[in-house]
């Protein structure tokens, strides 16, 4: 006879006891499947002519190829992708691309100049978020069919409105929006006038190493090898599993349920450092952490205050104590890894110098100010450190944390005073950031274009001119020199205190090799991945 007490105890123990005979299914991931634990919930589309956020760009970058891509070792050079060669006319308005022979889409069809022309035309006609990277050369839905056209199966001609530097055009074509899709398949799946956008958001028609099997939003993305692509390793399938919590990612990596963890924090990365069972693949990415000073505030509009803020910050202390493994000190507007990036760090904490600058601005007694910042870590910790640094020179900062889109919405409305935020580059040309940090043609509240510097109400005709000159310079070497000079001038004379550059880490189990990270997310690549 079972007593009530034993029955209750037995009942309570059942769920725990049940583990004992249900464990045989747990094992490492299969050898030919790569499992990646990653946060993939902010992805809205896998159409390369629409996708404009990090994870979507990364996946699209593995599915599609472009005409050209930046050299992996030397960012100042551009290599051929689907295009084998290219040339510009003397006037710098007409560019001819010869397509590489033997390249095929996943369907087995050859990649032609017609596919390339269609793809670029499609990006312009759809005019989604990233289209401006291409339309800035004067393409419109009305003229694009004439200006981007296939001459024959192997030749593509691009005619731009105004003379441009070849390197500028090439870098822009290397962006995700320059991806080449298979015209036939996309048109077969088009609905009304959507250019196949609805279909391509969740399907693929590319020639990259991988093809899309399925995207389950906020759950997983599954890729399989493109049999017509260039992948030579032993992986047949890649599964990106959405795991929000970095601690869970670490556990999965340690238990062998994930081969790679992509979003580990400093604390978790420390546990893996020096452990032979893991390889940490690290790369500085094009995401900069900075303080923006709104020029609508009279105190913040004084150039001496810009300088004082830059000299008051303890860059080293913040980097070493708060973000040692996820950020490095960086003070120019071009991230390390970009062509022409200046990696000098002239500013360091010098309270006396900063105080002298405050006195020179007539603000020796300091002032009160509000600083908005993202609420997600590490921003609150960085903001507190900045609050302490600025207090030393009399700037009394009141911190206001909010979800990052709230901070961005406030900045876009020019309602912030100081803001600690991040800026990510849109494409791999120096002009991407030179534009948004220097060129503000209309500083009115109702301006038609609202670049990043507009949000802080800053306009400087000299800097605008320098940025435009650098953009239009035809000589690649001289162009780089102009950008270097522009960055140095911007460091000295701008209401933006650039502090840190993010680094991303792919923590891989030892059995995994060939993971490659790029400066932009669309160059994070699984092309060489292998597993033993």
């Amino acid at each position, binding site marked *: 006879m079972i007593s*009530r007490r034993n029955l*209750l105890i037995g*009942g*309570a123990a059942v*769920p*725990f006891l*049940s*583990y004992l005979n*249900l*464990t045989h*299914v*747990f094992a490492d991931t*299969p050898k030919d*499947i790569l*499992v990646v634990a990653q946060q993939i*919930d*902010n*992805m*809205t*589309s896998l159409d390369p002519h629409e996708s*404009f*956020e990090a994870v979507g760009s990364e996946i699209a970058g593995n599915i599609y190829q472009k005409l050209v891509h930046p050299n992996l070792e030397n960012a100042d050079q551009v290599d051929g992708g689907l295009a084998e060669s290219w040339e510009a006319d003397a006037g710098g308005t007409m560019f001819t691309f010869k397509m590489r022979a033997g390249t095929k889409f996943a369907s087995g069809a050859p990649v032609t100049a017609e596919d390339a022309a269609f793809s670029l035309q499609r990006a312009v006609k759809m*005019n*989604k*978020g*990233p*289209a*401006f990277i291409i339309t800035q050369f004067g393409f419109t839905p009305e003229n694009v069919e004439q200006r981007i056209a296939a001459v024959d199966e192997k030749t593509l001609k691009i005619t731009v409105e105004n003379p441009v530097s070849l390197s500028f055009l090439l870098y822009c074509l290397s962006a995700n929006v320059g991806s080449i899709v298979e015209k036939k398949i996309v048109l077969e799946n088009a609905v009304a006038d959507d250019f196949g956008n*609805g279909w391509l*958001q*969740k399907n693929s028609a590319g020639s990259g190493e991988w093809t899309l099997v399925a995207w*389950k*939003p*906020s759950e*997983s993305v*599954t890729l399989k090898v493109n049999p017509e692509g260039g992948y030579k390793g032993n992986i047949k399938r890649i*599964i990106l*599993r*959405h*795991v*929000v*919590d970095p*601690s*869970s990612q670490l*556990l*999965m990596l340690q*238990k062998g*349920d994930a081969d790679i963890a992509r979003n580990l924090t400093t604390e978790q990365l420390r546990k893996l450092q020096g452990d032979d069972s893991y390889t940490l693949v690290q790369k500085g990415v094009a995401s900069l952490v900075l303080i923006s000073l709104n020029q609508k505030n009279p105190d913040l509009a004084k150039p001496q205050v810009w300088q004082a803020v830059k000299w008051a910050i303890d860059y080293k202390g913040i980097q070493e104590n708060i973000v040692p493994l996820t950020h490095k000190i960086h003070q120019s507007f071009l991230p390390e890894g970009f062509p022409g990036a200046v990696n000098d760090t002239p500013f360091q904490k010098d309270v006396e110098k900063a105080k002298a600058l405050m006195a020179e601005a007539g603000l020796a007694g300091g002032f009160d100010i509000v600083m908005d910042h993202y609420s997600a870590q590490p921003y609150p910790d960085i903001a507190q450190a900045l609050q302490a640094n600025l207090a030393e020179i009399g700037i009394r900062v009141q911190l206001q944390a*909010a*979800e990052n*889109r*709230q901070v*961005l*919405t*406030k900045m*876009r409305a020019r309602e912030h005073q100081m803001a600690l935020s991040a800026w990510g580059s*849109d494409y791999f040309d120096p002009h991407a950031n030179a534009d948004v940090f220097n060129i503000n043609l209309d500083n009115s509240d109702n*301006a*038609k*274009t609202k670049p990043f510097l507009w949000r802080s109400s800053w306009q400087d005709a000299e800097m605008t001119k320098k940025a435009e000159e650098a953009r239009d310079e035809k000589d690649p070497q001289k162009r780089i020199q102009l950008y270097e000079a522009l960055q140095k001038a911007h460091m000295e004379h701008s209401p933006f205190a650039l502090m840190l550059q993010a680094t991303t880490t792919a923590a891989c189990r030892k059995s995994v090799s060939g993971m490659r990270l790029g400066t932009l997310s669309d160059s994070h690549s699984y092309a060489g991945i292998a597993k033993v």
Partner: protein
Amino acid sequence: MNARIKNLSSLLGSVFLTLLGLTVITFMIGRVMPVDPVIAAVGDNAPEAVIARARIEMGLDQPVVIQFLHYLAQIVQGDLGKSILTRNPVATDIARYFPATLELATAALILAAVIGIPLGVWAAVRQGSYVDQTIRVICLAGHSVPVFVLAMISLLVFYAVLGIAPGPGRQDIIFQDMVPHITGILTIDSLIAGDWDAFHDALVHMIQPVCILAYFSMAYITRMTRAFMLDALKGEFIITARAKGLSAVAVVWKHAFPTVAVQLVTVLALTYAGLLEGAVVTETVFSWPGLGQYLTISLMNADMNPVVGATLLIGLIYVVLNLLADTLYKLLDPRVR
């Protein structure tokens, strides 16, 4: 007959008003919160022209009242709008995410009730004894320890250290996309497919999150059962039953418990509704793609159609469970009929 029609129309009226109120409040919160939903759709770096066009396409250039009326007209036609993030109709998304939560919540409620009710009764019968004190401590821990702490400890101990439980997720990687989607409830779908390995896998992946959720629900159910039972045991009919010489078991289970069961129906209904609402933290830690996670992600990305749609569903769940509780009340307690 008239009274029944009156009751029915009053019921439908209150359901309609509840859902309308929920729609108004959630919709307005979405419109007044300091985040621009267009940024969520096209990204912060998109040019102004693209942002302006997206604003028009999303109808956000219209006055809020017009936007609301349009939305209401859509809902009446069964269209909850589209999600910016997933690009799917919200109804399709809910049909995909809700079964995962339903599976988790139902299992957790059954476990919590099966353990919690006897524990509550036991604690009441042994009021003041060490049994009562121990149960109180267990329940107190259930109420006071944050769910993410327990979830992380559970993962750490059973998954990372002992290696006897599966990691986060709803199924193992080798079973991904292997089970045909019929109900969306993996355990049932794998049974329908006759795939025992997949069933086994789905079942073991449920154990940790179900136990965590069940523990929290059990703490509440036990506490309430104990309180109801103590009240019932003081009744004169219990003294009479004891005076008749009935056994302790018969007094407790045949006389006292039926009166408690009526009140417990409400407790269980509210607990179930709370679980179905989406156990956000548990779903996050265990990477469980349920309604709670869908709601949170949508909210964080200012994707308001899913937020309003999911809120309406949750409202509907509360209404249905309340109705169910009322009906059960009438069945269990003749005085209410």
